[in-house]
């Protein structure tokens, strides 16, 4: 790695951190984030972890979080902050940049720099690098598998094969959808081989000849890594079998039996042109246009300094296959774009180099194009900041999906203010009801209260000093209790989903008497 590339990567890492780090705690936790957070707390507090094949993906996220929370200095569940959890995807998101030099002789060093820059400023990657879910980890492990595989093919060293095997095990233990990446990789190998055969008459993709001993060793390492995590360190014997059984419910969902069934333009709209009334326009079309330039250069065999065109063609086939898989499936959630969008980001690195190479000796044109590319990066960074901070929980942001409204934090603040009037605030009894257990992320925000009960319907005895009831239940506890319990607020849990807060009359009276005078908001 030369000095300029090192400097360029450091700048990309700095930009990535600058966009990802601020206000990590600010956005309320999404339901999925809070479910993972509470599951992690079980592991953190010594209650262990057991893989559930029906939901919640693989075990890696929770185990990887342990050192992050330990380093945050948190002691006890109440002290664990969302920012400590969100540091996990953030570090893996920035890690995507640091892995790129491993592909220096595949993409070429200049393309590595441009790919690092697009990774740093991509709004989708910035937004989900601050989201406590599995997706960023899967993208990171996929890139590491690709890099380790590439390095193995270049050196034939056992170490790279073992690393690739370990990463394969980690991908399996991250998310069930890792099979899509493997299918896309295999399909890309076949298609790239067929392409070489058609164009050059070569029999096969020669680099793909593997040593059987190395392959077996890599698969053994993958199996060991996978078994260690799925058995929760050899405490859950059914874990590995469950990791296969999980595909039954997931296939059911992928087939469309899910509220997340969306038509094919779902991902393209979010990535290429997204605009809702009153909101800004969001687009990463620059990255995709550059990727098309990169693909065109690779498939027209236009020589580019330092770029291995066969690798780029393989990468192109992989990206297109993965894009097709995710778009054909009716089940779609916006964070799933990261897998195939990352392929486009790598190709966009090559595209930028191809564009500059096209200028030839017209240096002034190269300077103009380079400046335009940097301006594009700045514009993407501005979008990314807007996505991560200003519109972090706003439905006008393409990456906000079924997200918790900031209004829910007002509900939590109100509960905390009311219980603060009690001699032992954390001992207050709180009852929460929501149809189908749809009270998340409250279990995370009320984790400091040991006496909270959770129901999926209004229980026979619903009354408690503080009651939170989903509006859809029509609890009407104020009228039913003859105003012994008052509904003191209606809060938005998510767009279209409300929660009613009821407080025992005397407690509410006490709170009104004791609350500090209101502050001037402006």
């Amino acid at each position: 790695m030369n000095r300029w590339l090192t400097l360029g990567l450091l700048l990309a890492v700095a930009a990535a951190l600058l966009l990802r780090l601020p206000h990590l705690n600010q956005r309320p936790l999404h339901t999925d984030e809070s479910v993972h957070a509470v599951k992690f707390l079980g592991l953190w507090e010594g209650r262990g972890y057991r893989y559930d094949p029906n939901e919640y993906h693989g075990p890696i996220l929770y185990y990887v979080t342990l050192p992050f929370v330990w380093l945050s200095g948190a002691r006890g569940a109440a002290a664990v902050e969302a920012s400590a959890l969100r540091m996990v995807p953030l570090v893996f998101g920035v890690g995507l940049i640091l892995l790129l030099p491993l592909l220096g002789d595949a993409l070429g060093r200049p393309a590595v720099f441009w790919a690092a820059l697009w990774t740093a400023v991509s709004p989708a990657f910035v937004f989900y690098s601050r989201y406590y879910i599995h997706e960023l980890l899967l993208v990171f492990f996929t890139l590491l598998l690709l890099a380790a595989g590439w390095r193995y093919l270049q050196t034939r060293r056992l170490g790279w094969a073992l690393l690739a095997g370990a990463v394969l095990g980690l991908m399996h233990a991250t998310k069930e959808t890792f099979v899509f990446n493997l299918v896309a990789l295999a399909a890309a190998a076949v298609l790239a081989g067929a392409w070489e055969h058609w164009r050059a008459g070569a029999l096969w993709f020669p680099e793909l000849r593997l040593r059987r001993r190395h392959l077996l060793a890599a698969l053994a390492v993958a199996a060991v890594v996978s078994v260690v995590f799925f058995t929760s360190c050899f405490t859950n014997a059914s874990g590995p079998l469950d990791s296969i059984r999980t595909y039954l419910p997931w296939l059911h969902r992928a087939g469309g039996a899910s509220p997340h069934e969306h038509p094919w333009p779902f991902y393209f709209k979010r990535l290429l042109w997204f605009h809702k009334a009153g909101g800004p326009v969001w687009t990463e079309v620059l990255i995709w246009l550059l990727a098309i330039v990169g693909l065109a250069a690779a498939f027209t065999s236009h020589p580019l300094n330092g770029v291995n065109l066969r690798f780029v063609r393989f990468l192109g086939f992989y990206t297109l296959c993965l894009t097709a898989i995710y778009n054909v499936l009716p089940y779609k959630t916006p964070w799933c774009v990261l897998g195939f969008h990352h392929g486009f980001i790598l190709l966009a690195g090559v595209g930028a180099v191809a564009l500059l190479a096209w200028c030839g000796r017209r240096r002034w044109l190269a300077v103009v194009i380079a400046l335009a590319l940097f301006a594009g990066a700045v514009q993407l960074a501005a979008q990314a900041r807007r996505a991560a901070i200003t519109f972090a929980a706003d439905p006008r942001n393409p990456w906000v999906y079924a997200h918790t409204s900031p209004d829910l934090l007002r509900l939590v603040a109100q509960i905390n203010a009311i219980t603060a009037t009690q001699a032992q605030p954390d001992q207050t009894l709180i009852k929460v009801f929501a149809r189908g257990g749809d009270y998340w992320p409250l279990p995370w925000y009320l984790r400091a209260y040991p006496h909270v009960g959770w129901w999926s319907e209004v229980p026979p005895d619903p009354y408690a000093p503080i009651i939170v009831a989903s509006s859809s239940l029509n609890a009407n506890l104020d009228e039913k209790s003859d105003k012994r319990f008052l509904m003191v607020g209606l809060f938005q849990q998510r767009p279209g989903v409300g929660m009613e807060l009821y407080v025992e009359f005397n407690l509410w009276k006490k709170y009104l008497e004791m609350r500090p005078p209101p502050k001037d908001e402006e």
Partner: protein
Amino acid sequence: MNMKYCSDLTKRLALLLALGVGFATHNLHAQDLAPLPLKLPIPAFMGTPPDMQQMGPEVEKLSDKPRAPFMAPKGCVNLAFKKKVTSSDKSPITGSLDLVTDGDKEASDNSFVELHKKTQWVQVDLGTEAKIYAIIVWHAHNTFQVYHDVVVQISDDPDFTKDVTTVYNNDVDNTSGLGIGTDKEYFEDYQGRLMPVKGVKGRYVRCYSKGSTYSALNRYTEVEVWGLPAE
């Protein structure tokens, strides 16, 4: 054993006895008080919830039935239609005050006036005193949201300093300073919020609000005042 020693011994025994009684009493109290043996259900995990923004007509409705017809004396008309509107906000952020009574209650960007943050009001001058039977308010129904501190008052005094009748108030903690309300907060929808009024007489209707779950700003799409001219 001399007397001094006996006296000391007695004092020490008394002290020990007092400490023992105190400790026992303390323990007794501690035994009297115990945490309630609450058996509460633990939270059940759930998957990714549906995104209401994407679901269109399938979204969960807070009330899936249209409002029941409201019964009022025959001849009631919308007295507010095209009547003069004033406001606490002299320079609205978007739109103009006449939009509040122009009859357009669509959820489009051109149908509402948007007032600044904090508690704001719009006031309709009916032109003459009237007997009012219902007031319907549409703040903004382009997205799911709940407006805070919704207070509606009727008066013959344009400054609302005397003879004020409050017909709706959901400011339960009195943060807007108009009195503690006992009405409920509600989700905005296309039907608007109908506030029944029992024939209260007045010329001016004033509607307060203090932002919503969606925005700190205050939007007013339409206000209708249904009634009969006072005799």
